[in-house]
């Protein structure tokens, strides 16, 4: 290697540690906002990298590797960590040094992993993190003694308060040489022996006043109480959903108004024609219909991140495990499914916390059955048109029907999970074994960075696949244009209309008329678009959920009641939007599962709508 190449070499440093060691907080504290979040090729494991300036002026690449308990992986995340350490990932430079992040309140178990990393021979610096919480729990660790016993530099840090970062930089600078170290070679390690060694070292360096975990145990006395625990969980979830729907209302209105203003402005500036229609009716209408959910998704993510970082998420999984186990899932599936009530996209993204691949896949496949908020406008219009606004006992009939639709989705999801776990995703799930970390206040910086990462991921998707698919759907609905003397709605002359006509025989047996089939095609872009598509088909201009009165009257005249009920049943199961299929493609890294998801939900919707239609006809409705 010649001198200039040596000077330009950027050392690579990885953060490695057990889950809950505060690794990501340390990464955020070290790199601030200068971080790039991406994916490792072929897997849905997040790759987080940033720049770290060492005190001697050198700059290195800092990588936040997924948390793992050992070098023997049990999930795709853990495999990435192992492969990165051994320099086996294509396109990734081998490591120059490792920062082993360990939780001072859980020294024993985390130290065992450090002892497993040490024989690899890579320069290794130990970040003894969360020493403040250890002190709070009455634990004092002699860091100098620890360093002497394990023969590695040990730096005390408090990542969330940016304490110890300079010392960590100095220790790294001293450890990183000018030439890269030799690649480590995997060696079998005796876990039990390391565990014992860790316990002995721990006993020598740690003094505890016995108050350990006092705070967490006090909170758990309520949070995991057989009666108070579920009530608290229900209260938190109720608050979360209130927030998602009510706090998001105003910003959603602004986004809608902004898009409408932009459309009106463009209509003034551009000549009436294909270009204007493409931008206004295709791009802005389609992408706008998805971006309008950004406020809800951000609020939902803020809650999820706070619940994750505080340590409560594992408590929710603990409380719900028993119920989830009955359909072959585990407690960790609960929050992703719950999130799917707002939108399946964040729900499916949240399944990354499920460590069993089969459980995760099952959860992804049933997530679209949770009634997402995009289905509400559809339900609202059809219920408004066909379900009489009278009371049944103390309840309104319309509300009861809406509740029944939500319930049908949940029951459908349970049945689907039960069936999938015995067929498509068959196989023993790894047993439910979950560390329940101590409670912590979510750090503002970590929340902000996490939220920023997820928001950009969502917008990137809206900007690419959803944009492309809305343009295609717009094209299908706009071409060919109606003849000059055409007196039927324009959509009937278009390709979407032709597709609808071709599909009509398939849907006729379940009571769907031609107009419904027309609306189902653009409804693939986003479910609520089906409402405006129905408006278009029934030759109404500018129908959306706020101006739906005209449409309600039209539908009431045009559809028999069994058709309306079948349409509702259809929407409980099927037309999952293109965005959901796209995110499923991304999260499962293959087209197989989105195609399977589409097929099984289509079949379920078809059967449900058909049954509803024929039962309603038989009942003389």
């Amino acid at each position: 290697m010649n001198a200039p190449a040596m000077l330009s070499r950027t050392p690579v440093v990885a953060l490695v540690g057990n889950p809950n060691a505060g690794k990501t907080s340390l990464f955020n504290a070290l790199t601030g906002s200068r971080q790039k979040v991406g994916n490792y090729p072929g897997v849905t494991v997040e790759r987080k990298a940033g720049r770290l300036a060492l005190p001697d002026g050198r700059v290195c690449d800092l990588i936040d590797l997924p948390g793992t308990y050992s070098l023997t992986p049990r999930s795709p995340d853990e495999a990435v960590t192992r492969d990165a350490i051994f320099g086996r990932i294509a396109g990734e430079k081998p490591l120059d040094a490792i920062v082993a992040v360990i939780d001072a309140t859980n020294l024993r178990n985390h130290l065992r992993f450090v002892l497993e990393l040490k024989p690899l021979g890579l320069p290794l610096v130990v970040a003894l993190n969360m020493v403040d919480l250890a002190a709070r729990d009455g634990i004092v660790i002699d860091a100098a003694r620890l360093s002497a016993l394990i023969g590695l530099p040990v730096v005390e840090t408090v990542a969330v308060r940016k304490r110890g970062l300079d010392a960590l930089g100095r220790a790294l600078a001293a450890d990183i040489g000018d030439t890269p170290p030799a690649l480590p070679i995997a060696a079998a390690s005796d876990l039990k022996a390391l565990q014992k060694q860790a316990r002995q070292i721990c006993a020598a360096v740690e003094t505890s006043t016995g108050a350990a975990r006092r705070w967490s145990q006090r909170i758990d006395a309520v949070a995991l109480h057989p009666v108070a625990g579920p009530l608290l969980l229900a209260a938190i979830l109720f608050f979360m959903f209130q927030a998602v729907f009510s706090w998001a209302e105003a910003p959603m209105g602004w986004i809608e108004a902004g898009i409408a203003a932009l459309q009106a402005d463009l209509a003034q500036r551009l000549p009436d024609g294909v270009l204007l229609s493409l931008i206004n009716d295709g791009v802005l209408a389609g992408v706008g219909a998805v971006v309008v959910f950004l406020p809800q998704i951000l609020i939902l993510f803020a809650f999820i991140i706070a619940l994750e970082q505080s340590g409560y998420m594992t408590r929710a999984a603990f409380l719900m495990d028993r119920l989830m186990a009955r359909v072959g899932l585990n407690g960790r599936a609960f929050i992703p499914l719950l999130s799917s009530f707002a939108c399946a996209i964040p729900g499916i993204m949240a399944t990354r916390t499920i460590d069993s691949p089969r459980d995760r896949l099952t959860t992804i496949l049933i997530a679209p059955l949770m009634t997402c908020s995009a289905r509400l406008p559809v339900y609202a219009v059809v219920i408004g048109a066909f379900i009489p606004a009278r009371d049944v006992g103390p309840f309104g009939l319309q509300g009861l029907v809406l509740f029944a639709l939500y319930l049908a989705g949940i029951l459908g999801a349970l049945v689907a999970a039960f069936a999938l776990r015995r067929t498509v995703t068959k196989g023993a799930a790894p047993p439910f074994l979950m560390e329940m970390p101590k409670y912590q206040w979510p750090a503002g910086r970590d929340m902000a960075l996490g939220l920023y990462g997820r928001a950009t991921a969502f917008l990137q998707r809206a900007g690419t696949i959803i944009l492309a698919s809305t343009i295609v759907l717009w094209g299908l609905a706009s071409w060919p244009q109606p003849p000059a003397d055409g007196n039927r709605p324009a959509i009937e002359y278009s390709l979407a209309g032709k597709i609808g006509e071709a599909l009509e025989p398939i849907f006729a047996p379940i009571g769907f008329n031609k107009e419904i089939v027309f609306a189902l095609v653009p409804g693939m872009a986003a479910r609520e678009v089906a409402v405006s598509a129905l408006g278009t088909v029934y030759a109404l201009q500018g129908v959306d959920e706020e101006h739906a009165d005209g449409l309600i009257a039209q539908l009431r005249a045009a559809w028999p009641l069994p058709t309306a009920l079948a349409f509702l049943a259809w929407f409980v199961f099927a037309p999952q939007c293109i965005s959901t299929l796209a995110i499923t493609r991304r999260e499962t890294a293959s087209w197989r599962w989105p195609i399977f998801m589409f097929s099984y939900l289509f079949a379920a919707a078809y059967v449900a709508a058909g049954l509803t239609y024929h039962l309603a006809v038989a009942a003389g409705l």
Partner: protein
Amino acid sequence: MSSPATPRTINALAAGEVALIAAIDRAGLAPETAQRLCELGFDEGVDVEILHRAPFGGDPIAVRVGNMVVALRRDMAALIEVAA
């Protein structure tokens, strides 16, 4: 491995009772699961205590093992014997 007539497992611990792990029936576990148990700190001679039992039937349980809290289902806890 010593096995008295009726080995006492974690499941039999009373509330607030602290015991030491006497034996783990690793033969009854998949190798990965046995290893994960070890990684989470379950090992002969380590102190355990049941902190919480989940609602709806007392399964899973939250166990303190060393100074870590781990949730596990009772069928797995039944493979971990304790000495009083």
